[in-house]
């Protein structure tokens, strides 16, 4: 049987079947469509202005490694004029994060980008290992997720960048849409498909891989032989998200377009005005100045619970050991 020709260029032998479209394509065409689609996403959302200082949230995993690589390629190819940085958060998970940070350090050399590493220990006085020691493995993902979000903002403020890019891919977003519908989280459902989010006091945050399939990221990293860390976190994954993820994988197996179809659905609807009107107004945390819908932000509440030895209970009293975002911005100025 003659080899299949690439369905895009009709010249070269196809080496892969594209998960997103089902087309048989060659390696060069795969690079072309992968990079051009990300560029299209960036241009459509008008993500950058020349001279922007942009931090890439780097964990050493496949998504952030490919993101750093592709951003460097696109920045040079299309003259975005960006000043790119790597920003890593050390959650303090021995045997996992310390190894992945070594990958990030190698990426720094390979991509020639400045790297900043911030740890939970220095920001909050707690490492994830110590948190798990106290709260167990059941809810530790809640702590990690809340702390990381703030840590990235604080790190970005620390190095004076205007914009953080994260490696969230299409699978992550589709999964979040399903999860927010299932748990009735209207506020998050309304914003989870936005490519860029920004609170009053927070730094702009974007997801250039919004329409990129996880499988294609793995393929790209594989063909380009990128150096990434592929071990899963040693602490148990988020059970609720795991539930949605398994379901999504089943849907994708039935019809590969399911991932993009779910994102399209999430983009096609919005929260009704009367529901929005009833939602709690966004304010700032009285302790650390971070955006919050309560007196204390989620991170400060969780920290308070930890300091009082109450595990996962978010107690709304006490002292915040986190750095003040406003204070850090002041220092930068």
């Amino acid at each position, binding site marked *: 049987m003659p*080899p299949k020709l690439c369905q*895009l*260029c009709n010249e070269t032998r196809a*080496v*892969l*079947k*594209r*998960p997103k*479209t*089902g*087309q*048989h394509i060659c390696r060069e065409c795969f690079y*072309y*469509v992968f990079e*051009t*689609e990300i560029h*299209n996403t960036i*241009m*459509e959302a008008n993500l950058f202005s020349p001279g922007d200082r942009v931090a890439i949230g780097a964990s050493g995993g496949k998504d952030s490694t490919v993101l750093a690589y592709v951003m460097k390629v696109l920045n040079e190819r299309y003259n975005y004029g960006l000043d790119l940085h790597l920003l890593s958060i050390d959650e303090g998970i021995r045997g996992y994060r310390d190894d992945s940070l070594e990958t990030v350090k190698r990426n720094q050399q*390979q*991509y020639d980008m400045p790297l900043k590493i911030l740890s939970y220990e220095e920001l909050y006085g707690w490492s994830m290992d110590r948190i798990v020691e106290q709260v167990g493995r059941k809810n530790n993902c809640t702590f990690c997720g809340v702390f990381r979000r703030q840590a990235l903002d604080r790190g970005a403020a620390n190095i004076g960048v205007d914009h953080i890019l994260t490696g969230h891919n299409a699978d992550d977003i589709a999964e979040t*849409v*399903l999860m*927010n*519908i*299932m*748990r*009735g989280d*209207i506020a998050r*459902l309304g914003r989870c498909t936005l490519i860029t989010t920004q609170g009053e006091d927070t730094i702009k945050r974007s997801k250039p891989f919004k*329409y990129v399939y996880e*499988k294609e990221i*793995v*393929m790209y990293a*594989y*063909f*380009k*032989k*990128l150096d990434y860390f*592929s071990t899963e976190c040693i602490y148990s994954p988020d059970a609720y998200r795991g539930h949605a993820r398994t379901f999504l994988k089943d*849907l*994708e197996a*039935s*019809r*590969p*377009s*399911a991932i*993009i*179809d*779910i994102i*399209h*659905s*999430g*983009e*096609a*609807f*919005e*929260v*009704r005005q009367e*529901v929005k009107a009833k939602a709690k107004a966004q304010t700032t945390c009285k302790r650390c100045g971070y955006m919050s819908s309560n007196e204390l932000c989620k991170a400060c509440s969780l920290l308070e619970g930890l300091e009082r030895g109450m595990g996962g209970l978010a107690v709304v009293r006490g002292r915040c050991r986190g750095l003040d975002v406003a204070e850090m911005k002041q220092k930068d100025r």
Partner: protein
Amino acid sequence: MSCEDPSSARMIRSPKHLQKGTCIKCKTSKGKITIRHAVYCKECFFSFIRLKFRRGLEPYINADPLSSRTKLKASGNLTLALSGGMGSVALLDLIYSTYLTDTSPVGRMHRQKIWPQVYIVFVDLSAVYPEKDEMRDLGTQIQSLKQRYPEVEMISARIESVFDRDWWTSTGGSNVDSSSVDLKDSDLPFSSSLLHDDPVASFQKYLSSLPTSTSITASIDLFIRAILVHLASWTRSSHLLMGTSLTSLSVGLINCVSQGGGYHVHEEQEEVLDGIRIIRPLRDTSAKEVAYYAWWSGLDVPGRQRPTTLSGIKEQTRAFIFGLDRHYPSTVSAITKTCAKVEAKSSSEIVAQQCRLCRRPIQDGIDAWKHRIAIRERSATLEENPHFEASSSSLGRHLCYPCHTTLSSPNSRTSMATSNTILNLPVWTSLTPRSSSLVSNSDPISAPIPQAIEEFLLPAE
């Protein structure tokens, strides 16, 4: 335990949710059923179900929602969709016992009928599985249901009728010329030529040409809905009732979202088509409650014609949601509550076009969006013109996102067939559109292939 006399039998209790005690409502009788951690006796359970049913229907009966609720009067007849499943049989019983008998409190109150005539419509799916005898038997069982409800009139239609112009016009449809479409091209070019006139052949060709089993299920659902609305219009009905339970509605909503139908989440819950209001009065009643109602009422449930061989998105969603319903019932109701709080994004002030297949509104800019996020051709024009628009002779531009995906989205294992992709379209689609150096140079193949992408890599020569 006897299968003949339901009153002598008891359903096996779930040890997890079994709660001893008296009924939460009357506080005197012994509890027989636990619903979301509340125990009810049999009598209170029935009044609870009837209350929810009436709450889900009566506010929508009068044409003017502001008119007084004390006098219920519909502007036309009533059509009830009967699939043979638990929900539709229970709904028929509730309608009959609440509004059509003089013995019921509401029946006495409304001596003048709310609807002049009540019809039940059964869509025969035997053409989907011509080899299965039980599909044919279901029609007979459905006919026998009518004996229990003498005041309702029954109409039966075959699913392949959607390709039958004679049937369509004889049941009040406009005289139309059918057309065909070529699925090979993702823009879906269509022509007015008809391949053949036999409805069964057209129907079977249509199903067999679809790219995925998800598309087959979605098309069958779409055809059933089209027949129901068409017959409701023919019978001059103002209301079309579906027996969708809370659990089934959650399945429908997640299925709709998973197939890109976020723009139609509202229509999935309630919609008005050709002046007919489509209502799901059991949307607050879980599948478990519907099952208990049918069981304790001694209803004869023939069972739905549900495809067992297909494993598309709807079947997977169904398995997932029914699993959740067993262990996390509040998650199932959270899905419907969440979806009730969202609406289609209004991107422009132009009146939305109707999809030629499902007749739901088409969102603006779908072509451009699809071409931007997934490049399917390597031509300069795509980069130069990201705001792509399909040709005017393509069906693609007259379809909503889910219908376009149904006809064009390929399977993960097989590509779209390269021949035999021209098929007839259902009769109503031909009507005029309605307004409404970082990299190593070594060969990557020598490196171990990550498991996640293994099946997508083509073998070397």
